């Protein structure tokens, strides 16, 4: 039921025309639609009931994200609705409650920003001073950033909320393949007061990792939505495009490619759903990291394959911007790389996985 309602809403508001209108635009999404999503409770799903949210898990959120991904929605459901939300939910600092309430009501649009190496979050007076840069921050049109900094000499740093308008903050927009933007954030001596602490230093790394894992799984789910749409478009095309006197879907060489695309989609979906269920049921942080990295790696591999194959099966029309496959292909490129591609997550999995034990040892 949740899925049906989500599908109806997503399909109603994600017309090809609107998706295209959002490309190369500032903002790269529609704030009105975002407010509608908030009104439907989409931004409250992962928020505990004690904070005024719905207190649900990834399996429920996944149904929304799946449909939103399938519809190629431009609004930042995973970047803000999961990543920033997940970080705020796990937070314990003074800025948490108000930000979370504003996020759920679509009155604040925060984005998580990981400070690159060489960046610095230093104590300064009663507050903090930020220097450094963060790249690939989405949504680029965020009104504030949740800045995560690495520990310095083993001393952990808090997560800080920095308004986009704060002095010393410069945002450069970098164009992603799908026409949305990623922010390149430059922070120069940005003064942050104590009340802007989102996560206190001791909990900061744990909260950020937990939020990253939730976002990885939801990114994978969103990508399986993209796969569903691409495969459906491709199968329709195979059924209707006639060459040599018959629908090209009757040719075995093309059928087998379409089947492999279908298998790639199902496998990615099974892995992502399995991750949702197991994380919802509770697991250790290492297990969670393995599940999340497996989901993102599998989604990346499957989607890369499906998107490329879809163009091949469509022929030249699949290479045009005008045909809507282009929207999903470009979304695939953006999502595969965002938060780490398949290669990166194979390495991350290896860091978190227990030693291999052969079944027949």
């Amino acid at each position, binding site marked *: 039921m949740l899925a049906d309602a989500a599908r109806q809403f997503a399909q109603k508001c994600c017309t090809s025309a609107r998706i295209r209108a959002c490309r190369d635009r500032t903002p790269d999404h529609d704030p009105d639609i975002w407010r509608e999503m908030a009104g439907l409770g989409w931004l409250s799903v992962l928020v505990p009931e004690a904070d005024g949210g719905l207190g649900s898990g990834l399996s429920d959120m996944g149904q929304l994200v799946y449909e939103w991904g399938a519809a190629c929605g431009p609004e930042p459901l995973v970047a803000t609705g999961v990543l920033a939300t997940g970080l705020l939910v796990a937070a314990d600092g003074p800025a948490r409650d108000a930000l979370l309430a504003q996020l759920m009501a679509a009155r604040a649009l925060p984005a998580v920003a990981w400070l690159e190496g060489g960046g610095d979050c230093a104590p300064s007076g009663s507050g903090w001073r930020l220097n450094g840069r963060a790249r690939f921050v989405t949504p680029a049109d965020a009104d504030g950033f949740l800045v995560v900094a690495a520990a310095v000499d083993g001393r952990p740093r808090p997560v800080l909320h920095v308004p986009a308008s704060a002095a010393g903050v410069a945002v450069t927009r970098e164009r992603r393949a799908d026409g949305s933007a990623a922010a390149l954030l430059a922070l120069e001596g940005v003064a942050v007061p104590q009340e802007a602490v989102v996560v206190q230093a001791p909990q900061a790394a744990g909260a950020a990792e937990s939020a990253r894992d939730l976002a990885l799984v939801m990114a994978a789910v969103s990508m399986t939505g993209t796969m569903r749409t691409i495969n459906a478009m491709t199968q329709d095309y195979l059924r209707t495009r006639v060459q040599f006197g018959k629908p090209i879907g009757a040719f075995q060489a093309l059928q087998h490619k379409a089947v492999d695309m279908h298998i790639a989609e199902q496998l990615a979906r099974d*892995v992502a759903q*399995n991750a949702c269920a197991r994380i919802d049921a509770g697991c250790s942080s290492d297990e969670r990291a393995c599940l999340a990295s497996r989901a993102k790696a599998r989604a990346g591999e499957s989607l890369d394959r499906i998107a490329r194959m879809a163009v091949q099966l469509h022929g030249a029309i699949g290479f045009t911007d005008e045909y809507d496959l282009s929207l999903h292909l470009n979304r695939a490129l953006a999502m595969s790389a965002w938060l780490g591609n398949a290669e990166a997550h194979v390495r991350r999995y290896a860091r978190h996985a227990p030693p291999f034990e052969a079944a027949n040892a």
Partner: protein
Amino acid sequence: MNAEDSPDWNALPDEDFRQRIRSYLEAHYPDQFRYPSRRLFWHEIGFWYRRMSEIGWIAPNWPREHGGMGLDPAKLLIFYEEHERWGVSRFADMGILMVGPLLIGHGTPEQRRQWLPKILSCEHLWCQGYSEPNAGSDLAGLRTEAVRDGGEYVINGQKIWTTLATDANHIFVLARTDRDAKKQAGISFFLVPMQQPGIRVRPIRDVAGHSELCEVFLENVRVPAANLVGAPNEGWRMAKALLGFERIFLGAPKYPNYALGVLARVAQARGIQDDPAFAQLFTRLRMHVEDHAACYERFVEIVKRGEPVPPDISMLKIISTESFQAIADQVIRAAGEAGQLSGMVPLGAGEVDVLGPFFRALPSTIYGGTNEIQRNVLAREVLKLPT
């Protein structure tokens, strides 16, 4: 063992049931037969099946009133999972898997009385006479023919790729009984004792040097008309219906898992397990096997709920066998120059059958319906692509 003596397995909680199966296997199944790198012959593994027969575990899939364990789908899966987990060899138990369910579903009371007890006691060992030299993927094109002659049928033809026919004393045969019907419509199902005059079995030596597969020649083989199962010309439909539940096992992650274990041992023995390129490759394969398991679990849940197995299940066989082959190939590469040696190869402190996984994996994309046929099925029945 009588049905009255056997416990009501389905009434046990899943975990208790699992524990009982597990502890029995761990206590009684001999170590040297765990995870065999080829199929075992009856003279090697027959003792185990006799023991299963004695304790009433020989036919987990049959109803209790016919002498089986009567396991429901969930319990049956657990039963097989525990066997796989402990690496218990499955003899080509075609009597249990195919003939029993066929007779229980379509046989006459006389046929059941005549044949079922001897399957349960291991007196009758069955092999499957399906494929023919000119009817492989296109099985319905089979040409072995059965002609009615009074109270008997006379069968002529040839079967091939019959697993362990040299061990079996009975064969069930699909044969054409109506030459004029559409090809699927004129086929009947026969039970044939192999000591019958006119039957000749020739083992086929395979690329691995094993002789598990055979040719079976049938020349004027006479069987009583009572050996025809179900209605005449209904054999194809019945044979297809038999391939339901069992298909999930062709897609289980057990073989990829086994190959991954061999790969880990080979890498350890050659000291390359920490080589960054190898470690990355191994991690990828390990993740793939875990991903496959997640897909397998989805189908297991469907089966456990007692729902019909969806046609999408063909994907499991594709994923499983292609993963098995990919890992088996890596075992050979990881072995380096030892990859040229057949049989158990001294490597590091132990011994490994380096080519074992490769030779087990090689035919897996062919048997049980080639992967190309599986893809055809998916294209037609799931993707609904035109023909």
